């Protein structure tokens, strides 16, 4: 796996995604006292995944704010802080609870710069854990990226690897515009990797070719990019050469990397955990159908969740909703064979 970083130091440390978020937030708090973390249970509890554990002791309750349960105002207050020169990092405890703050994200944060003709800006990060496979049932499992990715003025990232988490979270914090930072909760402790020491950023809007290949391009992100990589590696034994791209940023989207890959492999499989209709895969597919139609040797395929409202709590339902490395390998085989 090639981790692209803008500044990479020799030393590194093995971390999981929780640790990567935590370490990055910690550094940011240390280095810039304009940074404020606000959200539900981020203080004494240190966030429900213990990401901000003990921060309140070190940085005080002025910087680590246990907010009332009120998501619209968590984001809205952060917008006001950002307009007035602070660098708030707002947390939505689970992505499923971001809906009440939709107005503040889509109507306000994303439009602050535009509607004031650049007089006011909104350098705000909204972090939230999303995704399923953790028995989170109907309301602790959703993917929310497709509800926001249509919105100009907003940026969306969804890193999958600890090193990317750090680099992209740093980039999001430095960014002068609002960034929705999506953390797949199943990868939190599952995924470990080397994380370079010191401050570095990964540019928002750049995908990462995790594995090169010649017969098929697979684009994914989040938990599923790990499974896609696993599937693609397994297929190597059978002589299949599948290129796996980790999208990492959803808006802006790295058209160049996708188009270059498709030009080479002439086939595109998009895989995401979210349901299909109107999902991220729709834009990827449409973009390729627009820009590179005659480079394609097979119909573009989207391997996504079925269009049902959510995965259920029962294991049987969750299992049926979620994909797997096996299902992905099957789709890859079919595409290569097409």
């Amino acid at each position, binding site marked *: 796996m090639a981790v692209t970083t803008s500044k990479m130091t020799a030393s590194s440390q093995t971390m999981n995604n929780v640790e990567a978020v935590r370490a990055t937030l910690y550094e940011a708090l240390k280095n810039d006292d304009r940074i404020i973390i606000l959200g539900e249970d981020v203080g004494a509890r240190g966030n429900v995944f213990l990401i901000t554990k003990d921060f309140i002791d070190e940085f005080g309750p002025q910087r680590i704010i246990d907010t009332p349960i009120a998501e619209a105002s968590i984001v809205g207050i952060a917008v006001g802080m950002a307009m007035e020169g602070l660098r708030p990092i707002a947390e939505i405890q689970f992505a499923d609870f971001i809906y009440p703050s939709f107005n503040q994200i889509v109507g306000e944060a994303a439009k602050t710069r535009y509607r004031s003709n650049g007089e006011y800006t909104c350098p705000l990060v909204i972090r939230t854990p999303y995704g399923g496979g953790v028995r989170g*049932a109907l309301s602790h499992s959703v993917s929310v990226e497709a509800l926001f990715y249509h919105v100009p003025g907003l940026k969306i990232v969804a890193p999958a690897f600890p090193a990317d988490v750090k680099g992209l979270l740093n980039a999001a914090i430095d960014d002068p515009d609002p960034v929705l930072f999506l953390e797949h909760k199943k990868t939190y402790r599952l995924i470990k990797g080397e994380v370079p020491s010191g401050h570095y950023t990964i540019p928002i809007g750049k995908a990462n070719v995790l594995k090169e290949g010649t017969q098929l391009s697979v684009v994914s992100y989040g938990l599923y990019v790990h499974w896609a990589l696993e599937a693609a590696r397994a297929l190597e034994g059978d002589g299949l050469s599948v290129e796996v791209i980790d999208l990492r940023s959803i808006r802006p989207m790295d058209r160049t990397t996708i188009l270059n890959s498709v030009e080479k492999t002439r086939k595109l499989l998009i895989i995401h955990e979210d349901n299909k209709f109107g999902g991220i895969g729709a834009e990827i597919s449409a973009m390729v159908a627009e820009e590179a139609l005659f480079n394609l040797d097979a119909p573009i395929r989207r391997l996504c969740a079925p269009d049902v409202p959510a995965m259920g709590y029962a294991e049987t339902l969750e299992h049926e909703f979620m994909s797997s490395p096996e299902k992905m390998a099957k789709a890859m085989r079919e595409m290569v064979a097409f």
Partner: protein
Amino acid sequence: MAVRTTTAFERRGLSDEQLRQLFRNMLLQRQLDNRGFQLNRQGKVPFALGSEGHEALQAGAAMAFERGKDLLAPYYRDLGLCLGVGLTPYEIMLSIFAREADHNGGRQFPNHYSSKATGILSFSSVLAAHIPHAVGAAYAIQYRNESGRAVLCTNGDGTTSEGEWHESLNFAAVHKLPIVFLVENNLWAISTPIEKQMAQPEIWKRAVGYGMPGKRFNGFDPVETYACVKEALERARSGGGPTLLEGMCYRFLAHSTDDNDMTYRTKDEVTEHRKSDPVPRFEAKLVEAGIMSEADVAAMKKDVLRETNEATDRAEAMPFPKAEDLYTHVYEGAWQPWQ
């Protein structure tokens, strides 16, 4: 059995039978709660959430509820309320085990009880989102002139901070709807203490601003709870409009099996509140008043355990939802892959 007068405590018109019923609900609630946690420790279920400390409040409120008439819009901490209005331990266990026969078909987290037959509305995990639904249901009741009916809507103290809570109370007041808003104030919202949730901790005082009556009561006392909720529900049923009630209690356990409360509050604090544990307290009162003997209590506890065991075994033996069940009830009719 005829109603006897006792001097031990205000019985607010409740018969001995009803007082015992209250107590039994409290016992059953605690037993089922424990069972959820046990099953979680045994690795049989991935999640459980308890309402220890809310038993008196919920048993009392449930007794004021008129089955077959009133509607309940509960939240996830309302095991006792749902039992009290008619859900069976078996139904509770189906939810905990996420079995196919569960009202939600194993789709929702446990503790998200709903049952149309019992008058319990369906709700999601998104806090406060159910409150406007309760108001809409109350509107339907009023619109159809179904007097004698009301909606009992509950939520935690922390949930009062949500905008939807505010909007709902305001609308209900404007239309004088038949609804009672009952806040179960256990002083905590996961790790957030009440003083970080609000500057002024008496939630009932917000009622003035909305133009409805407000009242705070001791939610550790099931009889006082019953009387307060009954008064408010009767006002609602007879056209007197909504009420905001605040029942004071305490969350004895961690928020859920995913939480460790010792990271944010002290053992001493919990121990201090445990001294007023409503379950042994009410037991002592009933015994003292001669409404139950020690033997009665022991027998009741045994019976509650038996009922819990039976419900557990019966539910556990039921099948999980089928994989294909993922595709039902998206819209009316059969699911289309491209919908």
